[in-house]
């Protein structure tokens, strides 16, 4: 006990100061996190469990769930491969334009999602750069599923690269070089040496990427066209329900997204943000 009280006196605050600090933090969390989360579930179950499940089982809601899962199922693997490849390129090679590439990876984070959506309208829309060609080919991108997938992929592409890049940079390439001198092929080196060392960061990046892919509103809202049962993702469906005063249904569907957020937090605890020590 003696060392503990010593350390308290050495680095800690006085008792009143500690109470104020802890109290402020707790009050803030209650107001901005706990209360809204609780409100979602209270509203969702306002008309009973039956109404809750009815809202989720409604055909348009099911279509939104399906589209959201589909979008994530395409965007997340794409960005995982891209993120690892980009991080590997940027951490292992020095080339002209490397810094520009590092900055470009962050672009989707620095641009408002609405602008990101507009970019796709300008490129793929009927009046857009590729609009004429696409119309001739009979391919519909904007206001259709491909547009939603594209916008989501764009908005979520930094997550994996951002998590993996610092890990790869700090770990250095000596073990990979060792593997090569031992006669391992490039693929063997990647799967047996590189991948295990970035595993935790990669998993966390994938979890974050997935959460955002399912929850993205702004960019998707611009390119989707809000066609019920066809181009509505979960967040868009929540908005429509809410605007039409179906509060219970809106919150029931919203609770699914909230559960996703909670699952992400649990995954964060499991994988951690940082990798294993080098």
């Amino acid at each position, binding site marked *: 006990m003696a060392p503990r009280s010593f350390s308290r006196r050495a680095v800690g605050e006085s008792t009143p100061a500690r109470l104020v600090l802890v109290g402020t933090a707790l009050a803030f969390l209650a107001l901005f996190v706990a209360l809204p989360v609780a409100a979602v579930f209270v509203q969702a179950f306002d008309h009973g469990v039956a109404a809750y499940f009815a809202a989720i089982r409604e055909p348009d809601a099911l279509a939104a769930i399906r589209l959201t899962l589909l979008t994530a199922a395409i965007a997340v693997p794409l960005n995982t491969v891209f993120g690892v490849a980009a991080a590997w390129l940027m951490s292992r090679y020095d080339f002209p334009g490397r810094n520009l590439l590092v900055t470009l990876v962050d672009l989707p984070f620095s641009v408002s999602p609405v602008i990101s959506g507009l970019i796709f309208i300008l490129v793929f829309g009927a009046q857009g750069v590729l609009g004429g060609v696409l119309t001739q080919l009979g391919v519909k991108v904007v206001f259709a599923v491909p547009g939603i997938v594209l916008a989501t992929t764009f908005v979520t592409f930094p997550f994996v690269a951002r998590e993996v890049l610092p890990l790869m940079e700090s770990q250095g390439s000596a073990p990979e070089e060792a593997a090569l*001198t031992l006669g391992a092929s490039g693929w063997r080196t990647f799967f047996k040496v590189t991948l295990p060392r970035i595993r935790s960061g990669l998993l966390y990046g994938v979890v974050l990427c997935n959460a955002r892919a399912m929850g993205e509103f702004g960019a998707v809202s611009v390119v989707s066209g809000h066609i019920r049962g066809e181009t509505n993702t979960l967040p868009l469906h929540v908005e429509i329900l809410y605007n039409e005063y179906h509060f219970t249904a809106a919150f029931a569907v919203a609770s699914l997204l909230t559960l996703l957020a909670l699952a992400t937090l649990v995954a964060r605890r499991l994988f951690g943000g940082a990798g294993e020590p080098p």
Partner: protein
Amino acid sequence: MSVVVDGLCRRFQRGGPPAVGNVSFSAPDGAITTLLGPSGSGKTTVLRIVAGLEVPDAGSVCVDGRDCTRVPVRERRVGFVFQGYALFPHMSVRENVAFGLEARRVARGETRRRVDELLSLVQLGEFGDRRPSQLSGGQQQRIAFARALATEPRVLLLDEPFGALDARVRVELREWLLRLHEKTHLMTLLVTHDQDEAPEVSQHVVVMHEGRVQQAGAPQELYDRPATPFVASFLGGASALQGRVEGGRAAVAGLHLAVPAGARDGDSFRVFVRPRDVRIAPTTGPSRATNGLVERLLRIGGMARLDVRLPSGEAVAVEVSQIELERLDVHEGEQVNVDLAAAKVFLEDYEI
């Protein structure tokens, strides 16, 4: 197997100084050759080029008479021991050692047998199931050796293999390396900045400085007959003094030393003298070259190190044994007689 390196050049930044500039040497078969030099001298880059981890801008690497400058790393059959060991942290010791064998698709039974054999060779048989992080630095280093030896390399390349270890473990591991070499007679190229390590582990030393080879030869030969001012000052931590040629002799500190051929009167030169080569005596005794003031006296183990200020204002480091010091009865702040007869003389334009 011998390694012959010819005219290697490597520049990391366009327009910058070359990390390696026209390096040539040959490492004899069955021996340990040391690349010795201060940090930044390009020795590690040369080693990485020999391994194939780095591609030279110019020059060639021949192993056993065959040019392998363009052969990819994985086909060169070199064993590389990295400075920080570079063990695979997520694998057990056994998996680390087996990695190269598995990569070369050696049969499972044979792999198991080889790993057992290597672990006993490095005296770590009972640690096979541990992770590298659970081992001490010296043990990790021996695992790195075992891993490099597993694939039966033609050449063993060691990058500062004992650099990160404490002094006692370093001495043990050096002896262990020598015994290992006696058993395997594997051609070994070792990079170090430690001038004490080079003569202890190798028969052939290549001294590098600023990307160039300064001198190559047997350790004793380099020590006795340094070819350049750098080698003279680097080996043995020599002090440098300035002087001028007078009457065909190098005049320094009251002494007249022989100068290299071609020296003219008035040429300036530099003299290098190792602390152990300086003779000191009490000023009361028979007069030697010059007197100097003992500014500092440090006892390190059985040795004493003195900083002596000469009348010219230059300082000379002197090392004598404790016994010798007691016999001389010299103390800090006293005058001593200094004899630099063993100094090596280099004309100024000798410097490349």
